[in-house]
């Protein structure tokens, strides 16, 4: 094993061609996952609340869309949005935005169900009590339900973020220069050290994801102890 290939290319692994070119590497991985993490959290919250509040045909439609997003492989969704949206609807989405969009949609679809589960896990008496106090449906949600449900959901938000960090690696299929992509570029150039390179890349992802995992675990334990 010869790890000099890592130290020789360290800044390319971490930052891509930046500052003489676009940002890439591990920094881009973090940026992509952060952006799609935030958007999918918002999307998940809105759609999850919609699942609670909406009734009838619209709800079935929403369930159908969410089901579709959860059923399609991430690679396929990235292909669809990058190559087929421009042809079908003449909308041109740049590569980075495509990845953020695709990941946010998928993350949002998963989180919507977590949010829905979190809200439904509260006893029905909470709703009844709120209504008895003369509050409207949305007021109950905002003042009584969400403040209790949101802290319970935090771990699933963080877990979703961990999967998003891993899923950014799939951006390689459309040539986005995140960590996995620059790693294959380097591996393709030096040719003889794939083992070292992929071990190192795995380590970087591991550091990112397990630190988030640690935080998530702290969060799970803390409310349990204080309650």
């Amino acid at each position: 094993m010869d790890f000099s290939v890592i130290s020789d290319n360290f800044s390319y692994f971490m930052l891509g061609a930046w500052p003489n070119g676009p940002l890439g590497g591990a920094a881009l991985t973090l940026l992509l996952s952060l952006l799609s993490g935030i958007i999918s959290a918002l999307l998940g919250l809105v759609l999850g609340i919609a699942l609670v509040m909406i009734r009838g045909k619209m709800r079935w439609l929403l369930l159908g869309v969410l089901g579709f997003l959860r059923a399609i492989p991430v690679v396929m969704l990235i292909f669809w949005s990058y190559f087929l949206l421009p042809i079908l609807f003449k909308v041109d989405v740049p590569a980075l935005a495509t990845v953020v969009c695709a990941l946010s949609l998928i993350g949002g679809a998963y989180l919507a169900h977590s949010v829905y589960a979190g809200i439904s896990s509260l006893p029905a008496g909470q709703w009844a009590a709120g209504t008895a106090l003369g509050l409207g449906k949305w007021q109950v949600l905002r003042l009584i339900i969400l403040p209790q449900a949101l802290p319970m959901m935090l771990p699933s938000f963080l877990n979703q973020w961990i999967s998003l960090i891993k899923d950014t690696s799939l951006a390689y299929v459309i040539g986005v220069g995140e960590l996995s992509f620059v790693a294959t570029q380097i591996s393709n150039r030096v040719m003889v050290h794939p083992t070292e390179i992929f071990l190192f890349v795995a380590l970087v992802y591991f550091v990112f994801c397990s630190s988030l995992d640690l935080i998530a675990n702290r969060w799970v334990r803390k409310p349990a102890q204080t309650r």
Partner: protein
Amino acid sequence: MKKFTALTALTLAVLSGLAHADRLDDIKKSGVLRVASFDSNPPFGFVDAKSKQIEGLDVDYAKAIADKLGVKLQLQPTNPANRVPLLVANKVDLVLANFTITPERAEQVNFSIPYFASGQQFIVKKGTLTSPDELNKWRVGVDKGTVNEGVLREKFPGAKVVAYDDTPFAFTALRNGNVQAITQDGPKLIGLLANVPDKDKYEVPPFTISNDLIGVGIPKGEARLTEVVNQTLTDLEAQGKAQGIYDAWFGPTTKTPLTRLYKIGDKS
């Protein structure tokens, strides 16, 4: 009436996609020429270890075209399989990525006049291939979305084809022993081998199974852009600059010395 014409225009634009667009004007207006090129295939297009930028023969041609248009060059790394989709989906203006001209592709995209010629060859571990017929029993690595794959299937129907995203992946599989040969355009293979530390263990057997001409890929129907690209290529040859680009990557003093057999404008 006014409404009606606007609607018709919109419908036409949506239906044909070509009605409004002249890519040449768009490029000049935005001041940027978006070109897809390889990032892992020296000496055509690869990320230089020092500059961290994509460089190579294809990139030099792309620079020349951008200079001619007086716009900035923006490179988009691509693998072989993404080249046609990138053009069709309007993600790039041109593809310069060792792009073989074929009648099937020409139905999807425009091609410039050829600027390079090559033939499909193989890399094998030294001494393993005694006759080309043996390939019929071998596992052979190719790149997804290349002409090479089809040619291989046709010429050696018995070969077990394994397709990878890019040539270096296929080569790693060869080195690991997962395939016994890989096939690609000869100059690309020679460029690849030149950068391998233990190149003595491999060889490119001296037979060619196809003759390919390489051109610039241009979005379908962009006649004016095609014209400009063709003119640029012809001028580069006339001014001797094409020879200069060739010598920079395949000249006698390079890692991959190769005699120049094809000049821009030659009849194939």
